[in-house]
């Protein structure tokens, strides 16, 4: 009952925030001489009117759910894992690498996913260990690893996994390790079920297991958690482990489940920023796995709608981005403020970071 009330309040708050965002963005559109009404019609019609629109929104949402989980799990435990972006690159590439050999279909997909998860974890290992043993701020280290990861990924695409016939992309993933397409003619694949299932699992972990209890305790009050026997190093390692897996899987959904390419292109055009967008999605979803599912669909819709808005309402791309940004910011604001408060508190504990 009480929980329901709290949930309803959060939903109401989000709807209000979205409305405020739309109004503010509307004024901005108006001020630059565009019609907000037709812009918004274009925006929402595109993504939510028919099956194709919805499929597009869901396809966009698939990786975002997973990268948002990376951030949310950490945030619940009082950590700020910004590293989904880099970990996701390696997930995508590791899933491709699984096509260097041949396995029975189905099993091949599972192996590719395992590769992806492991690669994500691998790339989160150093920040994780540094934080757990030396107290090095994970904010800084994960951001650094995103950059290192980006250039390493460029190199891997061009040199290691490169398609012998087409130098601008990696080898193409074998059909046996692909996610089947869910709605023919769209890029929505069964990967969406993986993303939703992982979100539900994370929900279960956080609120129905002792491990989750301890993670949330460490995030809500580190002193009391220590008093209650929670080992913070253990929590940190676990958070990064889970974060690495989800980010790695996010990458895999793109190389294994996003028709028509089934490969990673040089410069990483299809996957860049999915990790960063996930942070926004996590904040809109209040770092709650179920909230994240809805937030990701909304965000995914906004992304495909933005393209339509540009095409049909004749609004330039920059303007579309501004509108998008304002709406996302309005939605993420409550969570953002909370995070600033925690960071300020943490500044002291970590020392050195002042």
């Amino acid at each position, binding site marked *: *009952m*009480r*929980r329901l*009330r709290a949930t309803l309040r959060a939903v109401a708050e989000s709807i209000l925030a979205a409305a405020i965002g739309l109004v503010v963005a509307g004024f901005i559109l108006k001020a630059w001489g565009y019609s907000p009404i037709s812009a918004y019609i274009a925006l929402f019609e595109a993504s939510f009117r028919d099956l194709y629109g919805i499929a597009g929104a869901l396809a966009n949402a698939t990786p975002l759910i997973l990268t948002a989980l990376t951030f949310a799990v950490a945030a619940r435990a009082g950590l700020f894992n910004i590293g989904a972006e880099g970990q996701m690159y390696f997930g995508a590439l590791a899933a491709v690498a699984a096509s260097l050999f041949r396995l029975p279909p189905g099993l091949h997909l599972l192996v590719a996913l395992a590769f992806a998860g492991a690669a994500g974890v691998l790339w989160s290992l150093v920040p994780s260990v540094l934080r757990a043993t030396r107290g090095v701020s994970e904010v800084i280290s994960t951001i650094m690893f995103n950059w290192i990861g980006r250039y390493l990924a460029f190199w891997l695409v061009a040199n290691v996994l490169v398609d012998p016939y087409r130098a601008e992309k990696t080898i193409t993933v074998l059909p046996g390790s692909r996610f089947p397409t869910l709605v023919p003619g769209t890029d929505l694949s069964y990967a969406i079920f993986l993303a939703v299932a992982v979100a539900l699992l994370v929900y279960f972990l956080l609120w*129905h*297991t*002792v*491990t*989750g*209890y*301890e993670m*949330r*305790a460490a995030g*809500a*009050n580190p*002193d*009391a*958690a*220590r*008093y*209650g*026997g929670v*080992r913070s190093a253990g929590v940190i390692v676990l958070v990064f482990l889970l974060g690495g897996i989800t980010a790695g899987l996010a990458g895999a959904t793109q190389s294994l489940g996003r028709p028509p390419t089934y490969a990673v292109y040089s410069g990483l055009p299809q996957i860049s920023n999915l990790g960063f967008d996930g942070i926004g999605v996590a904040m809109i979803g209040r770092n709650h796995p179920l909230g994240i599912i809805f937030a990701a669909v909304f965000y995914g819709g906004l992304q495909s709608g933005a393209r339509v808005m540009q095409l049909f309402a004749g609004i330039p791309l920059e303007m579309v981005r501004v509108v998008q940004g304002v709406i996302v910011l309005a939605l993420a604001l409550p969570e953002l403020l909370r995070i600033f408060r925690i960071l300020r*508190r943490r500044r*002291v504990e970590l020392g050195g970071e002042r």
Partner: protein
Amino acid sequence: MPEPLLKAEGIVKVYPDGTVALRGVDFDIRPGEIQGLLGENGAGKTTLTKIISGLLPPTLGRILLGGEPVRLRSPKEALARGIGMVHQHFALVDDFTVLENIALGTGRPADRALRASVAELMERTGLRVPLDAPVENLAVGERQRVEILKVLSRAVRILILDEPTSVLTPVETDELFGFLRRLKGEGVGIVFITHKLREVLEITDRVTVLRRGEVVGEVLTRETSAEELARMMVGAELRPRGRRPVELLTDIPRERREAVRTGVEPVLVVEDLRVPAEGGGEAVKGISFELYPGEILGIAGVEGNGQTELVEAICGLRGGRGSARLRGREILGLPPLELYRLGLAHIPEDRWKYGLILSFTVAENSILGRQRSPRFLGPLTVLRWGEVFAHARELIARFSIQAPGLEAPAKSLSGGNQQKLIVGRELSKEPDVVIAAQPTRGLDIGAAEYIRDLLLGLRDEGKAILLVSADLDEVLELSDRVAFMYEGTFTAVTTPAELDRERAGLYMGGMRG
């Protein structure tokens, strides 16, 4: 009778979750008067004073200041109008120094001038704190002093104190009272919340009693008695018991336990324990003692003399050198969970730092530290919520905790009820050794008595209890032996029967016995 400085009329407060905390309260504050505000845990005292000091908006009702209706939107606005409040839970910035915190509270820069005026204030009030220490290094009693100084350093016409004495020693309380009397002489209107009837009778002129959000009585202090006040609070006759005389309590059971103790091994042996202080130096300078089954060893002393560090070192929350052996096993440096498995429970002095996770629900808090015990742990580390709820319900019933519900966040409990939740949780661990720091802090008379009885009962069952309290009466009443702590060492270890308050005061002040 002079015009009231402030009148609150028909105040109703309904919290967002539907809890009705105040049901139409009329309340006034008069110049040159100290008014006691009494009531059981959860009666609404904190809520009422938070409304008067601008921290919470009332749901209904209005506040008149000098006859004019006012709307106080923030504590800052209230302060600007001369209303200051010392909160039950501290509102201090942890990583700031004491002086910086006071500066923050007064809006003045933390400069020489402020330092001088605060130093002078410390002199006048008798409340002393190290001005340059970061607040996070201070014990609760010291933080309380900072909180009081912060408000007093502003010129206020109305001063509200929410349980300011619950962690002060008798000497400090006396000095504070002296200061409050002087303020009263200057025409300040003072509201004083406490659970200690002795203090109410000593310092107040008038007493208002709240019960379940309603004013159930208003009397002049000189026309009332402890019994009448207690009756008004509870709404029924209290067991005719009050505080038992010290002799009675300590003598009889002690002999019996002495008999038990001969040939008994101590459960906890602490030898030459040294704990570094946060700011350098040592907070605990080589303390040794033995704790026997079937005894309560009290540690008395002014807060900030190393008690916090001593307890935290033994309880695995802080590093220390030397040795502490629980039934022969070295426990220094063991993590808290391991200590719990060895049968040690710890009621922490700071309920907001260690005791509770405020944003967690009552049910979640009820298992903190026991989350991995088999009762709550299913396969694959799945939490058995059914068992957790059942356990929380047991605690609520047994310790009469007033909570809006099992899923209400702990922060929505009144101070005393938060304390009951912690004490209940720790004692429900069925420990052999209890380290209890300020166990009855903020509890109303009935609840405090209940906890004291419980500690005595545990002792009689043969458990060992280390009791740290700023409340000298409590230490003397409960303990079989008392150690006095001063600047990191024990100045004396003795039995209450051989003590009087004066001698105790000397030991607390550093005289060795």
